[in-house]
């Protein structure tokens, strides 16, 4: 989740006063308001709309949505001047194959604007750029650079420059270990034999993407009037779109965009700010939304979302702004129309289709079992599906559990294995409950896990039932009575055979057999386990697999 925090006054200059209604409208635009104070507004931006992650981007989209400046916004690219060229050298192909570049002139930057510019960059890096993994943006004062530019890769030891906000010149490898930004993003380059760099016409290093700019050529100040912008990464289209988001925002504050010639295997101009054409059918949009909007209304709604419209030979064509990344398919236009139409204006409907409700068989069985046990005065507990080795095995006397462990990676809590029984869970609950009035009669119904090579995931799951009673009078007879009642009520024949189990007292522990198959265990919990778990009263328990009960 990305939260965009904007200066309220600056935003109000663009979109007008933020009244209660406007606040509600911002949420209904798909950018919920997180907080609003006199000074600031924070709005949540979903990952599909990186283009609104800036004051300009948001203002542009929202002005259209309010119907104040609807329709496709056109952006002009001036022809490249002499030396407005970027060569992508083949050395960089293996590590960071593409870049999209532009020059923007005529800027009047204030401290506030520079802060915004850095903020756009950071927001795009974090969200759409997947923390610079996918792409990174660099902005340089053109005055400090000699064109043309080369994008190439060099051995890290041969890359020497003074990185931004660092006192001295160091090499590429050192940047990763010594510079704070270098350390933060070191994993993105560490494994590479060569590191990518931008060099200017004097072979001066401008930056080492995606890590850091040079201190000499990478600092935008209030005196900067013209900038060179590059976006480097792995997917040409993502780069082009990201560059478009930045240059359009700069154009919105008065910048003039100039093209650059990119010399790769072939030559092409960047940026391309032409809208993309997407064929669609008005009928499909209406069908998806359950509406019956005429062409005129569809056009009006698309325009509220900043999308243009064109008709060629009876084919409806949407003109998608060059900075939009979220229109993957015709279906996306129906949401655009839906948002513009206003989700609050849809009339909900429940259709007349005939289907018959049906509860899952195991759910039905679980409900019946709970009813029976509630009748006997048992309270249902519901515990975590993750547990610890300590709780799951050691605390109930199981020493040999290596093969039973199913571990999750990097858990943020101590709970890092899937539960393999419910018995351990209920012992744990009893251990925490010695203050509660006795008798304590508990049951739990829930999924447990085991390793199973035959299953698709290598993990088997079964619905288990555990019953425990903790009281001065709790003993084998009591727990067997509960089992016996349950089995009689469910009309299931069962028998108990003597069994040994480390959690139970020998001679007071049995295996529960149904259809000649062991499906569970029953007995009195061994006193050393009670003592170790600080349980003050005797405990009798059973655990059984309920899915095997009805088979």
């Amino acid at each position: 989740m990305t939260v965009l925090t904007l200066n309220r006054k600056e935003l109000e200059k663009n979109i007008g006063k933020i009244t209660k209604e406007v606040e509600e409208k911002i949420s209904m635009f798909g950018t919920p308001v997180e907080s609003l104070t006199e000074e600031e507004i924070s709005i949540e931006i979903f990952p599909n709309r990186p283009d609104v992650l800036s004051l300009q981007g948001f203002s542009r989209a929202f002005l259209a949505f309010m119907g104040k400046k609807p329709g496709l916004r056109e952006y002009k690219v001036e022809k490249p001047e002499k030396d407005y060229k970027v060569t992508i050298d083949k050395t960089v192909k293996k590590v960071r194959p593409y870049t999209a570049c532009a020059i923007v002139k005529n800027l009047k930057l204030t401290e506030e604007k520079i802060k915004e510019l850095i903020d756009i960059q950071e927001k795009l890096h974090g969200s759409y750029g997947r923390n610079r993994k996918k792409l990174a943006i660099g902005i340089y004062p053109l005055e400090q650079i000699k064109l043309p530019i080369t994008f190439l890769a060099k051995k890290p030891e041969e890359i020497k420059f003074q990185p931004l906000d660092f006192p001295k010149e160091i090499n590429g490898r050192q940047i990763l270990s010594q510079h704070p930004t270098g350390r933060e993003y070191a994993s993105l380059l560490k494994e590479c034999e060569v590191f990518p760099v931008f060099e200017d016409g004097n072979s001066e290093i401008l930056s080492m993407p995606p890590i850091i700019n040079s201190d000499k050529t990478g600092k935008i100040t209030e005196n900067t009037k013209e900038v060179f912008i590059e976006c480097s990464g792995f997917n040409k289209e993502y780069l082009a779109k990201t560059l478009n988001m930045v240059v359009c925002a700069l154009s919105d504050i008065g910048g003039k965009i100039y093209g650059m010639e990119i010399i790769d295997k072939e030559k092409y101009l960047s940026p391309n700010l032409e809208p993309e054409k997407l064929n669609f059918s008005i009928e499909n949009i209406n069908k998806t939304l359950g509406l019956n909007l005429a062409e005129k209304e569809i056009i009006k709604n698309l325009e509220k979302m900043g999308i243009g419209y064109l008709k060629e030979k009876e084919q409806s064509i949407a003109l998608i702004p060059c900075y939009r990344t979220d229109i993957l398919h015709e279906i996306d236009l129906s949401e655009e129309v839906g948002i513009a139409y206003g989700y609050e204006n849809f009339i909900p409907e429940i259709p007349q289709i005939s289907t018959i409700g049906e509860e899952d068989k195991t759910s039905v069985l679980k409900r019946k079992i709970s009813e029976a046990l509630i009748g006997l005065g048992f309270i249902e507990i519901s515990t975590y599906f993750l547990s610890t080795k300590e709780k799951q095995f050691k605390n109930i006397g199981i020493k040999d559990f290596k093969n039973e462990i199913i571990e999750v990676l990097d858990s943020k809590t101590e709970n890092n294995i899937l539960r393999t029984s419910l018995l351990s869970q209920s012992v744990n609950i009893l251990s925490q409950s010695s203050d509660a009035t006795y008798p304590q009669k508990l049951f739990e119904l829930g999924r447990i896990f085991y390793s199973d090579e035959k299953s698709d995931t290598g993990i088997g799951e079964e619905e288990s039932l555990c019953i425990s009673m903790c009281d001065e009078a709790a003993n084998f007879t009591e727990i067997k009575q509960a089992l016996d009642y349950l089995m009689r009520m469910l009309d299931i024949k069962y028998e108990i055979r003597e069994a040994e189990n480390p959690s139970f007292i020998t001679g007071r522990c049995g295996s529960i057999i149904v259809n000649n198959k062991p499906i569970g265990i029953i007995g009195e919990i061994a006193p050393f386990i009670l003592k170790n778990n600080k349980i003050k009263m005797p405990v009798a328990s059973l655990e059984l697999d309920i899915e095997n009960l009805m088979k």
Partner: protein
Amino acid sequence: MEKEQSEIKKIIESLSPNEVKLIPHLKEGNFEKLFEKTGMNKTAIVRSLEFLSNKGLIEIKTRKEQTVELGVNGLLYVKQGLPERKLSNLVSKKNSLTLAEAQKQSGLNENEFKASLGALKKRALISLVNGNIILSGKKEELVEKSLEERFLESLPKRLNDLKPEEKYALESLKSRREIVEVKEANMIEFSITKLGEQLVKNDFSHSNMIEGVTPALIKSEAWHGKKFRRYDITSPVPKIYGGKRHFVNQSTDYAKNIWLEMGFKEMTGNLAVSGFWNFDALFTAQDHPVREMQDTFFISNKKAKLPDKKLVDEIKKAHEGKIKGSRGWQYEWNEADAKKVLLRTHTTCISAQTLKKIAENKEFPAKYFALGKCFRNETIDATHGFQFNQTEGIVVDENANFRQLLGYLIEFFKKMGYEKIRIRPSYFPYTEPSLEIDVYHPVFKKWFELGGAGMFRPEVTIPFFGKHVPVLAWGPGFDRIIMEFFNITDFRDIYGNDITKLRETKFWSK
């Protein structure tokens, strides 16, 4: 006067046998005297006094007072004697013996033995010479009960009443483990009221009262001409508790019933699933942040089998932008990520698996729901947990549309008791249009987010159906609803399983 007399008569009829026993001694106004004269136990006296006070016969005042009582070990020692009793018995027989012998023969443990030595030495009854215990006092003194022993037998006592030598005994016992305890207790004082004095003048002996219905009474018909003792039917009774379902399951069962009523079939699925079903089949790009370890529980050393190759290929095509009309995510999809095993992050993976079945059997229109646990790699605190409940649903129908999606959701949340509902745009990789459901909280005067829904994208449906079939889908979280209803403010209480709290928790009712 007459009125008072009939009042007194009524009270007399309602006196319990214990109260009757106490009444003659009330005038003395002394708790200890009641204890001595009636031989009743102290709790029974306290309870009966409360009842008498409820009837207006006495006035009770309680006063905080410190008392000295027996500790856990003290209770034992009153019966068996203090540990040094064992040692002194031994020494009085043998006159001299080694430390080792003494400890062994006395049967005392290390601590008790040391304490005993100290206690006897302090009284100058023994001395230690070269590791031998030698009797140094008079034998009679040794056999006599010690000050401490006499003190223990006299407990409980009020701290203020202790004589100087008892104070001394208290100090010496306090340093030993759990023999005595000084507790603050409520002392009861009472005085008889005017009404009480009036009553005593009457015959309150209950000679003509029946205490209760017994089998013998029914048989003998001995109730004729007699009265039953009146009960104070307004007095509170001790609490009892019944068995019950866990409150989370009570509420999910309720929700389940709503879906069943609306003609939905229940679908279930595994909690441990492959990345394929949890993410890939739902058009979630492989570099999406949710697929990182810091958000999702991946399971170590497991590799999932993928479904049939045809479906896998179609999903790959959807991601790579090779489905007609879609740009996809434009990257190279890889099988290894799909084979990772993880704990499902949403119940929507069950919907994906169900879509496969529905498509194979061509059984639509179809409506399915699921209610189940989901997981995310989170810490546990008041507002977070790694386990949560979701309610999932899909409607597969050629004619399904957005307005119907709103219809189902609003109906469901109305039945869940939410009147004011807001639907606003949202984003999920696998739905378009997407929406978020907010409900209005009348107390906080704020919208609360309950969860997401939408219509599955063609990139999700085409791999299963071979063409785009509209599917309405939703998966709002359930825990916020539960927390709100049960007034739970700390997430941890959902799975705390505190038995006392579970017993007290009200039933789900909407």
